[in-house]
């Protein structure tokens, strides 16, 4: 085990080469609905039990199924109303289980990035070959159903190995959602030296973290989203920031929570200097316009002893 995953060098927030988003926007704003499939009877991973109860796990399974049966349409209509294309964190098997949802999102030109096969299958304990095959399966399944190869990855149930990001970069991905170290995109070092970035996804704004872990009241969640936006919008006048709201249809789309979410979407999209976009578009823009300057700046601030190589390679 390592002391540090080695994906990025220390890089202070202040005095970075400024980011100028399209049309002078201060904040790149994206919404990432997690559209997931949890299995009723998954095999047990040696390091993490998928469900807290013996089979059948009715409470946990049924509320997640609610997200697909009831919640999805509610959130989709809301995002339509505010002109937001979702960036879906997708359990790839959902393409097979619920193709109707995939088709509706494809018609809307939403982005699909991979979130593994099922959210009840964890990376823990996989060999490198097994993990590569799982990620590739998820990418190929998504490409087959939506006609475009996914550009981003959020590991299933946030379960990782030491090489998760390296493998995804080798398979042709360009961004990861698994790192929470910054409010701006940053270059990520991979063992293959690919041009690869982290796009801020935010666990703090994640509805499941807010409601299930932090046990937040729905109206307080809405207020928190607006407070987060206000700060990033103010700072974005100097250098563009990123705000992401990761959602789950079984949390945000319940009747007692969706109103607070809508108020926040209305507030955020009502500001003039907001780039309402997707994870892929942020990653592509950054790679094209900011990545090289960022690498040079990181190298200049990291100290000569561990300066980043020109290819931004990672020691495996």
């Amino acid at each position, binding site marked *: 085990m390592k002391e540090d995953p080695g994906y990025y060098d220390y890089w202070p927030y202040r005095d970075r080469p400024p980011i100028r988003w399209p049309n002078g926007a201060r904040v790149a704003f994206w919404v990432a609905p997690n559209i997931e499939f949890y299995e009723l*009877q998954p095999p047990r*991973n040696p390091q993490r039990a998928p469900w807290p109860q*013996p089979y059948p796990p009715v409470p946990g*399974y049924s*509320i997640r199924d609610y997200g697909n049966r009831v919640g999805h349409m509610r959130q989709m209509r809301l995002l339509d109303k505010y002109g937001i294309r979702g960036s879906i964190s997708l359990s790839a098997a959902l393409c*097979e289980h619920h*193709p109707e949802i995939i088709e509706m999102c494809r018609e809307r030109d939403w982005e699909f990035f991979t979130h593994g096969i099922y959210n009840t299958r964890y990376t823990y304990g996989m060999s490198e070959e097994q993990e590569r095959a*799982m990620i590739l399966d998820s990418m190929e399944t998504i490409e087959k159903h939506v006609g475009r190869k996914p550009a981003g990855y959020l590991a299933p149930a946030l379960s990782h190995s030491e090489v998760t990001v390296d493998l995804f970069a080798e398979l042709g991905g360009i961004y990861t959602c698994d790192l929470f170290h910054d409010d701006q995109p940053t270059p990520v070092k991979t063992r293959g030296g690919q041009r690869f970035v982290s796009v801020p996804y935010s666990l703090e704004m994640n509805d499941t973290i807010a409601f299930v872990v932090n046990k937040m009241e729905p109206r307080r969640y809405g207020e928190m989203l607006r407070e987060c936006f206000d700060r990033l919008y103010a700072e974005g006048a100097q250098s563009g920031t990123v705000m992401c709201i990761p959602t789950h249809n079984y949390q945000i789309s319940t009747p007692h929570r969706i*109103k607070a979410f809508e108020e926040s979407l209305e507030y955020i999209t009502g500001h003039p200097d907001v780039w309402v976009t997707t994870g892929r578009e942020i990653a592509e823009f950054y790679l094209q316009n900011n990545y090289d300057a960022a690498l040079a700046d990181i190298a200049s601030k990291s100290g000569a002893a561990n300066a980043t190589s020109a290819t931004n390679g990672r020691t495996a």
Partner: protein
Amino acid sequence: MALDQELLQYPMRRYGMDHDRYEWSMLTDRAPVVWPGGKKLALWVNVSLQFFPLNPQRKPLSVAGNMTMPYPDLRHFSLRDYGNRVGIYRFLSAFDRYGIKPTFAVNAQVAERYPYLFDAVRERGDEIIAHSWNMDTAHAGGLAEGEEAALVTRSLDTLRQRAGREIHGWLSPGKIESENTPELLRQAGIDYFCDWVNDEMPYPFHTKHGDLWAMPLATELEDRFVVQDNLHSEASWADQVIDACDFLLQEAEEQGGRILSLSLHPWVLGQPHRMKYLEAVLENIQSRPDVWSAGAGEILATFRQQTASPATR
């Protein structure tokens, strides 16, 4: 290092669900429903009358609200009992004041231990559904099928006998089930159960002996869940219910009748400092012209009259 190959196989990766209990169906694809009088929102107030034994066996497991301290856990035992002695009578007054028609989910042991309370509920004529024997009889995986069958029979026999009428509905303690629960309920003459929280309208649930109906009783808005698990204030619980009511009424304008289910516990909201929030919620909802307060079975019967769902018997 590698995982057993079984962990990388997906035998149920197919169209629809990964089991055969019910069909994959999005709520928006269902035929719209109209409640009696052209109402848009059915209000299902479900009151659980519960007995938590002082000496829980926790076999196979413990459900929320159970004793947590070393024996004898007088604080939790008596606080739960408070609901059956004090809180419930506040509830009944409030229901009468605001014209609410509740449904009572009753542990059979409550009927046996507190005949005065059970008669008071029975004489109102509101619907009574079964809630197993007590709050220490979890119908969880690991419970032997024969043992569970006896538990279902004993609970239903007791409730039917004391109620002097049929019992058609079921709510499992903690909404936990074993893999045999749906079959056992169907065999015992149950028509609908309220354990699965995956929908907001009734849907047919398959068992080997014919279909049950799954009725949507939300956990996320339940008083105990909001106040005791999430530690939200009672004022916030009231806000959440009102926000849900507003949203569902609005959705019903476009998509047909909806159900607002409120799962209540007299040992939670029946406390003196919480009652006014329950009363405010009931008053607010009942003041809406498009709300229909009805029992769970009545809501289901109305739903079934209007939908072309497959015959279940």
